[in-house]
């Protein structure tokens, strides 16, 4: 069972019911559950969207698109049915926050889905969980069944005359399906390859109907915004970055865990105070700040606020909020290799720059790590990655290229130390240490 952590600097909004038994529908109701959806019904779609816009909530999956704005793009009139699709395909390495939401607060996902449905005039919502999350799917399925049994889902919800249904769905192992258009393909029973945009899902989405697709954490934040008001939520964060979010701090820290911190919270403080600093008193080498696809930061670059805009200015991205911390013992080339191996494995093969690029990068970085590369290979790696950028249907190509460019740019010396038959200095040091012991 995932261990829960806490820190006094946390602002617990989306995580406030964690560990309180809210999987039980009665307990959820006692903790203000299903109150937000009633308010939303009473006040109507325009009010919901204006509160969402005021909240400054930006997509928690990683792209950071303003949620209220996304909802407002859905046409009011549509011949085809409209849909809500919750993205719980959490697969970005370093990210495990939605895991806790499904585990501890499944009804918040249902309630948020209902409110999204009310906002856009949809009668059907899908909650898609990655296939590996079977035990969490069971929790979600029970929560949905309990909500139906209470009459909260189905026909005429809360006497409003509005019908709303929720269907849970499982994936079967595919990172790519976390991309919204591939997610729709998967839900339609196809290979999870991306669709070209435009048209955007808000206009032509699932089964050709207008569709709102939001990350599970985004959706689980919605009921809280309805209860506290958009403005109050916005005030917790920084300008244009409303609220708090679940940051997962993993890797070489003393107290890894998922912490809900206000947007704009200082990254250095998050690592050294909230997560207890570097494990074993070692020195920090690097931070991958928002899941494996975000460009790496060096130890002296981390005095920066964790919001979409400040991280962008710092030359990286806030991403999924998965902060991966690397101490001085890590070989950056080996880390870069493991990262690109992941993208090579997960590339769906639809777009050639991604399919071929991730494969060649894996080969090149692998050869370099083994000591079989020469000087110009370092520039070739970077050149290859740069030529993948923006040349694919979906962002997986960028997700593979961006961190690779970052590793070469920020840690070029480590790449050079591997050249001309030398191989990995860290591996040699470990072998020497083992031989002496």
């Amino acid at each position, binding site marked *: 069972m995932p261990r829960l952590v806490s820190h006094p600097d946390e602002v617990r909004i989306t995580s406030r019911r964690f560990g309180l038994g809210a999987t039980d529908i009665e307990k959820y109701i006692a903790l203000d559950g299903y109150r937000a959806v009633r308010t939303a019904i009473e006040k109507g779609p325009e009010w919901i969207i204006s509160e969402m816009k005021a909240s400054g909530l930006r997509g928690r999956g990683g792209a950071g698109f303003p949620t209220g704005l996304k909802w407002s793009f859905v046409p009011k009139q549509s011949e085809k049915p409209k849909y809500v699709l919750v993205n719980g395909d959490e697969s970005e390495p*370093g990210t495990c926050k939605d895991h806790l939401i499904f585990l501890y607060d499944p009804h918040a996902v249902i309630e948020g889905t209902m409110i999204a449905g009310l906002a856009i005039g949809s009668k059907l919502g899908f909650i898609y969980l990655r296939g590996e999350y079977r035990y969490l799917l069971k929790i979600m399925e029970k929560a949905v069944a309990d909500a139906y049994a209470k009459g909260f889902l189905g026909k005429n919800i809360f006497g409003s005359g509005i019908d709303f249904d929720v269907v849970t769905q499982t994936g079967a192992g595919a990172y790519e399906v976390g991309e919204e258009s591939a997610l729709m393909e998967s839900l339609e029973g196809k290979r999870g390859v991306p669709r070209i945009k435009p048209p955007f899902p808000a206009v032509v989405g699932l089964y050709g109907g207008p569709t709102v697709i939001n990350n599970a954490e985004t959706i689980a934040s919605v009921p809280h915004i309805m209860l506290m008001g958009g403005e109050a939520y916005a005030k917790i964060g920084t300008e244009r970055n409303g609220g708090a979010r679940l940051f997962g701090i*993993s890797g070489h820290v003393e107290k890894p865990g998922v912490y809900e911190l206000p947007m704009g919270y200082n990254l250095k403080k998050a690592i050294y105070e909230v997560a207890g600093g570097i494990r074993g008193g070692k020195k920090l080498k690097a931070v991958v700040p928002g899941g494996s696809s975000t460009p790496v930061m060096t130890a002296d670059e981390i005095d920066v606020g964790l919001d979409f805009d400040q991280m962008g200015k710092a030359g990286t991205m806030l991403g999924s909020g998965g902060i991966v911390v690397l101490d001085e013992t890590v070989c950056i080339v080996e880390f870069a290799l493991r990262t690109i191996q992941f993208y090579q494995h997960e590339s769906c093969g639809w777009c050639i720059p991604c399919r071929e690029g991730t494969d060649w990068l894996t080969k090149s970085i692998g050869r370099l790590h083994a000591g079989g590369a020469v000087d110009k290979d370092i520039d070739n790696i970077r050149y290859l990655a740069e030529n993948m950028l923006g040349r694919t249907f979906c962002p997986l190509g960028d997700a593979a290229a961006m961190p690779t460019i970052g590793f070469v740019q920020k840690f070029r010396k480590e790449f050079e130390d591997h050249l001309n038959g030398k191989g990995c200095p860290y591996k040699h040091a470990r072998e020497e240490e083992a031989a002496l012991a």
Partner: protein
Amino acid sequence: MATEKNTIFSPELAARFDKLVTLYPVRRSALVPMLLYAQDEVGYISKAVIAEVAERLGLRENDVESVLSYYSMLRTKPAGKYNVQVCTNISCMLRDGYGILEHCKKRLGIGHKEVTPDGLFSLEEVECIGACCWAPAIQVNYDFYDELTPEKMDQVLDDYRAGRGKGTV
């Protein structure tokens, strides 16, 4: 359409599939869950599974095969009764995920995607399973085990060997 009489699945699973296909605007949306649930019962996606799933959804068998080959959890060969999936992605790698993988290889005497001769265990090195803050983590079938050490890993394997594993399906 397959009926209860000619289905290869248990009556429970057949009934579940009958309901599943009605939940979506398009029957085909049930395809990925059906393949996974069929695999849970049969052990892998056999030719017979493909044929029946295709028939139930009104698809051609090669449509089903095309989808099947995309998803990493779906397999066309049997795995062990307990499929041990060790994550070695970045967060787990930093906390000795590879050490856990090597330990499992030694303990079980098998490598990546291999099955023990008694059919009890199979081993797989997998990509991120969403347990990064509790690394290193593994799954045995659908059950998570986290913050592992070689000793804790031994305990997990011993428990399964003795029939005391968790067993979410």
